[in-house]
């Protein structure tokens, strides 16, 4: 590697154990992982492998049962609900398979949602949302409702929403899963561009074609990292 990389996420011996009465399910079993600045990672694995659990933990939606999770210098594994909400708000941009746009809000208002939970004023919120929609090339679709947009455009609104708080990582869960191949490819090209612009991207997927475009690939199997290269 040409330039030295800064570690953003450090996961040390993390386990997630679900206690379902009689049976105990180890969704993650002693996983360790480091994610660096400007990484472009794909996480792959069959369903039930624990990749969703890993994603939820990386995304600070869930905390591990055992082990340490450090995000930059902050110890996520010890945080309460409010602190986790803050981290999600400031540090993580989510992109979902089903877009998860709010149907009653227009593109602009959808992109504004994360900013509402930050302490920005109204004027600044609008500026930031416009800027984010510019980046995804939807500057002339700002007042359109989600049902007036194509699938690809909807996902681009969702990406703008993920970018709007200038997060440290972008976490995408099957971002092309609900798109036709043409729109899917556009989104992937867009991820490549974002990566080139210096963003850190983590894509959870089960599609080889998606994983191939990433710079680093992690395979999960039975709650363990089977491959990391």
């Amino acid at each position, binding site marked *: 590697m040409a330039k030295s990389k800064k570690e953003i996420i450090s996961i040390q011996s993390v386990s997630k154990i679900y206690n379902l009465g009689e049976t105990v399910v180890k969704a993650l079993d002693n996983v360790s992982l480091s994610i660096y600045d400007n990484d472009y990672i794909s996480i792959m694995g069959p369903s039930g492998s624990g990749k969703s659990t890993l994603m*939820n933990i990386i*995304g600070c*939606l*869930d905390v591990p049962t055992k082990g340490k999770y450090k995000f930059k210098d902050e110890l996520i594994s010890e945080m309460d*609900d*409010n602190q986790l*909400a*803050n981290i*999600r*708000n*400031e540090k993580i941009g*989510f992109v*979902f398979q089903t877009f*998860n746009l*709010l149907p*009653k809000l227009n593109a602009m208002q959808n992109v504004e*949602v*994360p900013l*509402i*939970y*930050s*302490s920005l*004023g109204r004027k600044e919120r609008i500026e930031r949302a416009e800027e984010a929609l510019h980046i995804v090339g939807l500057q002339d679709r700002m007042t359109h409702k989600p049902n007036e947009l194509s699938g690809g455009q909807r996902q681009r609104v969702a990406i703008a*929403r993920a970018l709007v*708080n200038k997060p440290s990582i972008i976490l995408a869960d099957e971002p092309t899963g609900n798109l036709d191949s043409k729109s899917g490819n556009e989104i992937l090209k867009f991820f490549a561009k974002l990566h080139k612009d210096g963003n850190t991207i983590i894509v959870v997927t089960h599609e080889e074609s998606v994983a191939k475009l990433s710079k680093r690939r992690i395979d999960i199997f039975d709650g363990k990292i089977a491959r990391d290269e």
Partner: protein
Amino acid sequence: MEKLLEMNNFFKNIIIGLFSVRSNLTRVILTASGLTIGIFTVSIVSAAVSSIDKEFAKSMDYYGNDKVYVGTWPWSFDFDWWKYRNRPKIEESSLEYITQYSEYITDVSIKKNTWTRATYGNKASWLQLNGVYPSYQDMLSGTKIENGRFFSQNEWDLQRRVIIVGGTVRDGFFQGKDPIGKKIRLNNVTFEIIGELKKQGIGMVPGGTLDNLVIMPSTTFERILTRWGFDELVLQTNPKDIPLAKEEVGMIMRVARKIPPGDDDNFAVNSADAYMEQFNTMKNAIAGMGFLVTGISLVVSAIGIMNVMFVSVRERTREIGLRKAMGATNFNILTQFLSEAVAIAIIGGSVGIALIRLTVFGLASFPIPNFNGATLPISFDLLLVFYTFTVCVFIGVLAGLIPARTAANLNPIDALRDE
């Protein structure tokens, strides 16, 4: 500064809540209508009760707080008609006993009551007639002679056809002109008007308005108008002596009527305070029933709001999950849903207030016919608005709390996965 930002956040969540109210307007209005009805009825009941109260107090002035009345019927609402109707009539002669033996009664008068047709030219009206002693001049309560004079002892002795009239006669017969010296016919006998009473307005007690009243010497009354009606004794005392005076008068009446010990009274000693007590009991019963019914309707509408809020939370589980993933705290979500519930309640309450305003306005602009231009005694004030909003906020919070807590405590992962 930190505090300011927190407040800013708080209001943003309220706005999100209001936005969702706007996007479900039909459902919100239907849900809120329960509260509208509740607020409307609760206000009408309380307005009616307080207005009845005011009017009743005004009417009670007619009887005075310093008088004892002796009649055949007790002043109460539990009439035992058969028992009272066979009682002997009140004898004027009893007054002599009372004047002679009573310590507490300072002045006395007979009061003969009847109704009759009064005419002037081609105009006619029904008026209440009282035949009294000259001493009644000082015993008038709730009104006074405003114009002209009372009749004299001499006029009483000579059975003169002179009358003192209530406030409606002037407008009804004389187009608002001074009636003193004019002659009207009562029961086809001509009387001269020598005095006029101060106008009172509508009252709630039967026979409790002085505006339709005609007062004349009891001697004249007896000679001309004895076909029907009833007599009462009016006894003057001090307000503080009322209970003792009533007891004493009762005993004197028993002696005068030679009622053997152990037998029941065959007369009734009344006073305004006893009437007031009776009235309060009835008023409280009306208010109690009214508030019980409306209380139930408020509880039902609170349950309605709670139900809609649960539906709203259920429908928007994914939205909650998304907002949480985007950084909304539990408190943010709680505020959002609570303000939605409060907004629904306030919408319901506001429509209720508008309805009350309209009702009051409507009643005020349509006077009830045959009641001398008086309107139904319902009033509207700002305190009512204040109470309504307080109640609405309270109901909104109460109804919204459990659904909002459910929403706030949702796990974002499960919520996002919701179909």
